[in-house]
């Protein structure tokens, strides 16, 4: 039998981005022994890529702001498919979580009177995003990392978790390999927190790093947990489109928050055309009003002027840009123009330094002088592990989830800036939930037979003498999802994708790996691919069932929202004969929460 090492922790946190780190800190502070597992080095998780800011109703810049408005914006942005309780906790607790980061040493940009500065973002009524230039995520992850390393959390860098183990109906641990050596490790744990982020690597054009392969969603699914809202994949409207090597790399919404203007090849500022009628009154009526809003923002002044149409929600912008390009009004490389060059160069460089360098160094474009070319890029998974809002508990005992890997918080579409606040608020809650559970639980048993079966599975690709490489299969999957399960969807396309996924699953079982177990990326990709195949199927099946257009999910064959479908989440579970997706009712909003919309004259 293959050898393996055994490690034990009260709480095992999988993923060391913002949510995982925040969960680990909380569980450790509550007295638990915590293991924190990451596929990368510490501090490299996708959170470092978050640019524009963290949304919290601190009301430093716009004193009218408060949690109720943030809550309403979040629910509207999510087309009311969000779990109301998550959106409520999120809006209420985000300011404390941001202030807490400051207490731990984070240095956010300042207002003139020395408080945390906030900037405008799409779908947010007021200027709400605490930020550090365009590297907010880096500041957050470094602050959490530095806090965490002094707490005695055991960090397992460059480990991949391949499977969760159960003892009866409760979590008993997880299996892993060490990426550097290929050695196996069994983690025994009373509670497991999934904080593995998103699924973007299933698509060809994505802002996501190699790590984003849906590991947490797939691990939870295989362990019998419910996933929800998997049809809702956010395509960020502004990714780089040129040159080819950087296609998909994110262009922060901060560019638009600072006044960036979108134009098509004819020079038309097209976003006015695409504003939903119900929301039109929230946006500037014309170029003059939009310009006055930007001038006030630059001067740090209050204004009665309404925000520019470029600050509509991401789902809306992504569809608009896609449509402009498809109808022949795109830029030379198949995007549209995003222009911030009309502002003073010094301001652009100070507020958007990373964007400035990114474009100069990778695309030979000076954004203080020329417009950028941008187009939609796969960015964020709204769906994920179904959790109990207050504790982050999944539907399997001892399993918890937080951040992008969890579903429910963002509904059908996430607002920019709400992910960083999400991972702080629910990272902390899941860490606390797991610690609380672990304190009342004993260490469960892991079946030896299951361990041995897992090791055989992991090593099987080395034993095949023929078969294709994992890279080929990955490319085929990305092309399939990009081509058939993208921004606009239709029944026939989705059926084709489902059939294609079936073929890919059969090909996956025949992958051959060359070389040794020592730091072998070809081998690592095999497991990542298995997870991607699971989440891709969940996305496709959920998208098939949702015969309407809502938020980030747009069906060409069902172009309007269906009120009936607005009352359900699509729920994915593992059944005896494979994956099963079915609608489950949305949790009922209590009267006092509904009232929040009535007083604001909004319709629920």
């Amino acid at each position: 039998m293959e050898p393996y090492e055994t490690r034990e922790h009260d709480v095992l946190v999988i993923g060391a981005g913002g949510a995982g780190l925040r969960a680990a800190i909380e569980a450790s502070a509550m007295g638990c022994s915590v293991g924190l597992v990451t596929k990368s080095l510490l501090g490299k998780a996708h959170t470092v890529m978050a640019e524009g800011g963290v949304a919290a109703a601190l009301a430093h810049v716009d004193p009218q702001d408060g949690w109720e408005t943030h809550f309403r914006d979040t629910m509207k942005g999510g087309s009311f498919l969000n779990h109301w309780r998550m959106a409520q906790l999120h809006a209420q607790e985000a300011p404390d979580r941001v202030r807490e980061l400051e207490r731990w040493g984070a240095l956010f940009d300042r207002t003139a009177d020395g408080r945390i500065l906030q900037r405008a973002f799409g779908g947010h009524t007021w200027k709400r995003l605490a930020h550090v230039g365009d590297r907010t995520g880096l500041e957050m992850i470094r602050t959490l990392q530095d806090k965490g390393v002094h707490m005695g959390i055991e960090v397992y860098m460059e480990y991949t978790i391949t499977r969760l183990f159960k003892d009866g109906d409760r979590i008993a641990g997880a299996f892993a390999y060490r990426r550097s050596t290929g050695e196996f490790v069994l983690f025994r744990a009373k509670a497991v927190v999934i904080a593995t982020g998103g699924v973007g690597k299933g698509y060809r054009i994505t802002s996501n790093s190699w790590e984003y392969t849906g590991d947490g969603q797939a691990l939870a699914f295989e362990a019998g947990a419910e996933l929800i809202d998997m049809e809702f994949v956010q395509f960020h409207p502004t990714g780089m489109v040129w040159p080819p090597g950087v296609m998909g790399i994110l262009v922060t919404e901060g560019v638009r928050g600072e006044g960036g203007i979108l134009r098509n090849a004819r020079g038309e500022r097209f976003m006015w055309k695409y504003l939903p009628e119900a929301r039109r009154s929230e946006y500037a009526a014309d170029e003059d009003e939009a310009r006055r809003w930007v001038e006030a923002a630059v001067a740090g002044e209050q204004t009665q002027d309404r925000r520019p149409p470029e600050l509509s929600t991401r789902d809306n912008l992504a569809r608009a840009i896609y449509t402009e390009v498809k109808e022949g009004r795109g830029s030379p490389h198949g995007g549209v123009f995003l222009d911030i060059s009309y502002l003073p160069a010094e301001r652009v460089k100070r507020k958007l330094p990373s964007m400035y360098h990114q474009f100069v160094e990778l695309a030979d474009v000076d954004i203080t002088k020329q417009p950028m070319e941008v187009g939609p890029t796969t960015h964020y998974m709204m769906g994920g592990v179904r959790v109990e809002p207050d504790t982050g508990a999944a539907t399997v005992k001892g399993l918890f989830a937080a951040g992008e890997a969890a579903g429910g918080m963002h509904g059908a579409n996430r607002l920019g800036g709400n992910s960083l606040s999400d991972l702080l608020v629910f990272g902390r809650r899941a860490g606390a939930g797991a610690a609380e559970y672990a304190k009342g639980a004993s260490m469960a048993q892991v079946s030896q037979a299951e361990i041995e079966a897992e090791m055989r599975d992991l090593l099987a690709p080395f034993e095949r003498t023929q078969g294709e490489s994992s890279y080929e299969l990955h490319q085929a999957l990305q092309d399939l999802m990009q081509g058939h399960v993208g921004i606009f969807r239709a029944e026939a396309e989705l059926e084709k994708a489902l059939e294609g996924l079936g073929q890919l699953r059969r090909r996956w079982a025949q992958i051959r790996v060359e070389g040794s177990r020592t730091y072998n990326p070809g081998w690592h990709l095999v497991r990542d691919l298995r997870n991607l195949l699971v989440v891709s199927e969940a996305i496709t099946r959920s998208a098939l069932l949702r015969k309407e257009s809502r938020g980030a999910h747009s069906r060409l064959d069902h172009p309007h929202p269906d009120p009936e479908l607005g009352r359900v989440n699509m729920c994915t579970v593992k059944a005896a004969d494979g994956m099963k997706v079915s609608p489950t009712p949305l949790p009922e909003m209590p009267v006092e929460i509904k009232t929040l919309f009535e007083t604001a004259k909004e319709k629920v």
Partner: protein
Amino acid sequence: MSATRGGGEALLRVFRGDARGGQEVEYRVPIETGMVVLDAIHWVQAHQAPDLAVRWNCKAARCGSCSAEVNGKPALMCKSRMDSFPADQPITVRPMRTFPVLKDLVTDVSWNYEVNKRIPAFKPRPDAEWRWLQSDIDRAQEFRKCIECFLCQDVCHVLRSHELKHQFAGPRFLVRIAGLEMHPIDGEDRAPFLKDTAGIGLCNITQCCTEVCPENIRITDNAIIPLKERVVDRFYDPLQMVWRKITGKNTP
């Protein structure tokens, strides 16, 4: 440099091997417009050497994972444009030399994380007001731009040639300490740590670290020299020594 140049082929010489040794292996890679060295390495992985080990994450110069030595110069592979090298010469890609090789282009950088753990943490002054101006934090924010690519550690001759990892924390962590020391309300005293554990005296300000920093942090001028001054003021300034003797306080 032009983004419009594509076509043709590049010859890559990539180190293949592990802790026991290895050699450079040649790969021919088709060139696409705007391609970077990391793209070329990925192309080799997908088409010629599926087990070629490389560490990377964001491919946008944000995470600092893909550090290597390209034509002998420490650099992020995701920022090294193929068209910045002479088209008729091979491009050599080797792992960072200062750290032990795990495999191919991947090195064991765990020592850095051990150093980080020992740095005295942020400690706000109990009486401090949590309000400060942007101008109060511009300098500390510069240090917090660090993406921990460890290229400065790789190029630093105290670590690279003299192998004094046990005596010297290296530029990355002097930058981190500078960020803490220049936080407007930090009250921790790191001067003894800087002198005795971080070994700041070993740096003889050759600026090599500043030259390779992908975030353009002015490591030597803005971080290390002011920290050196703090240590000198504290431990070697005769006037301050007298002051401390009389008053029992650290700074006048």
